[in-house]
């Protein structure tokens, strides 16, 4: 053990959990994706995701409370949610195959599978658009998480 400066790692995730709303322009510029991909992604989000996750990624009302049917509502995709905590591979799989909270009282996929509706590039595009809704610190965290779990190689093909 070499470093005995007692340096404290603190506040990274405190800074991540801010409620600052990123503008399309600022997030788009910082996300690294090309404008055409982001425009496609936004269009896909509006058509397929907004009805559950909110037009601005704010999530369903009372998204943290289990519904009367015993299901967890659609969470936010913006900086107030937790989408940014997951690697690209995880997010891609959820969009492609769907997901349900294992403690839901119902068996259905509350997050539908879009693998038959969206092709690989479209799934990646909508995820890249969602990243524009995060803070720079959240994008940095998610990028680091994705280093060991990137998008499937096929999704990176033009």
């Amino acid at each position: 053990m070499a470093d005995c400066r007692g340096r404290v790692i603190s506040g990274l995730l405190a800074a991540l959990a801010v409620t600052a709303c990123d503008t399309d322009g600022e997030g788009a510029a910082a996300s690294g994706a090309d404008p055409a991909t982001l425009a496609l992604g936004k269009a896909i989000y509006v058509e397929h995701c907004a009805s559950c996750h909110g037009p601005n990624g704010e999530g369903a009302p009372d998204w943290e409370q289990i519904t009367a049917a015993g299901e967890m509502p659609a969470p936010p995709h913006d900086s107030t949610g937790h989408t940014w905590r997951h690697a690209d591979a995880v997010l891609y799989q959820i969009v492609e195959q769907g997901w349900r909270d294992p403690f839901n009282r119902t068996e259905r996929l509350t997050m539908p599978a879009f693998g038959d509706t969206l092709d690989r590039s479209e799934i990646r595009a909508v995820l890249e658009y969602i990243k524009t809704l995060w803070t720079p610190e959240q994008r940095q965290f998610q990028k680091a998480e994705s280093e060991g779990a990137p998008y499937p190689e096929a999704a990176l093909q033009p």
Partner: protein
Amino acid sequence: MMRERSTLIRTAPTVLLLAAAACAGGEAGVPAEGQPEGPVLDLVVRSPGELLLLEEDGLWSSRDNGASWEAVPVPERAAAAGFSSVAAPNDRPEAILLGGSFGVIRTEDRGASWRSSEERLSGPPSVLAAHADSVHILFAYDPAEGVFRSDDSGRSWMMMDGGPPGEIQSLVHSNLPGSMNTGWLYAATDRGVARAMDCFCGWRPSGELTGENHGMLAVTVDLEQPERIYAGGQAGVFGSDDGGTTWRLLSQPGQVTALATDGSSGILFAGTADGAVLSSRDRGETWDSAAGDG
């Protein structure tokens, strides 16, 4: 009445002396004398048949399911400051982590020498937990800040979130399938049991065992059958067979302050406020003194 955790002595000289000694090249451990007698703060199953028992000023090891104990050498100044939690990392068979007002210290030689984390938590951790499967991932809880994660066996820490409502008394990681990440965290709190995926995507009450009337001091998971969760406190020992959604009262062996499960043998261990170590071979329905086990 909740167990009163020892007041963490926040004396700068103590912390600085410990830090200096540890940074200088490790601090030697000194074994306690006698046998464990005080309130059990924490219990950990190190390997099949091997337990670690934490008291406020001592750490003990058993290789015969709690029938007999030997003291694990610990730094005298850390013991004087008071321990709060113990964890057994998966990366080395002889590694142990201790938490207290001094921060987090680690041994890799069963207590012969101890060193501090290179990068400290922001405050003294009251709870430590090891990942169920990963050899490097650890968790710590600072009541003033929240839940931290280490990806390098405790050498550095990152704050993940503020934790569930209430104060965490015990934390355990589960490899129960269905998480968006690698598993789940279950926390025994003064407001019941809470659970979260280990991506820290939000804490939720763990089923029915929630509310201020369900304060819990201990929680453990059977890693061989991770849908089996146990929680304990003054009200008794509760069990769940569905990952913590429904619970039932199993038994009332006294004020349970610590729980641990040996998945390989199916033995459930409990530590109590009056210093007893108990074992159950019927999943918490009945208990025997571990001293009579082996």
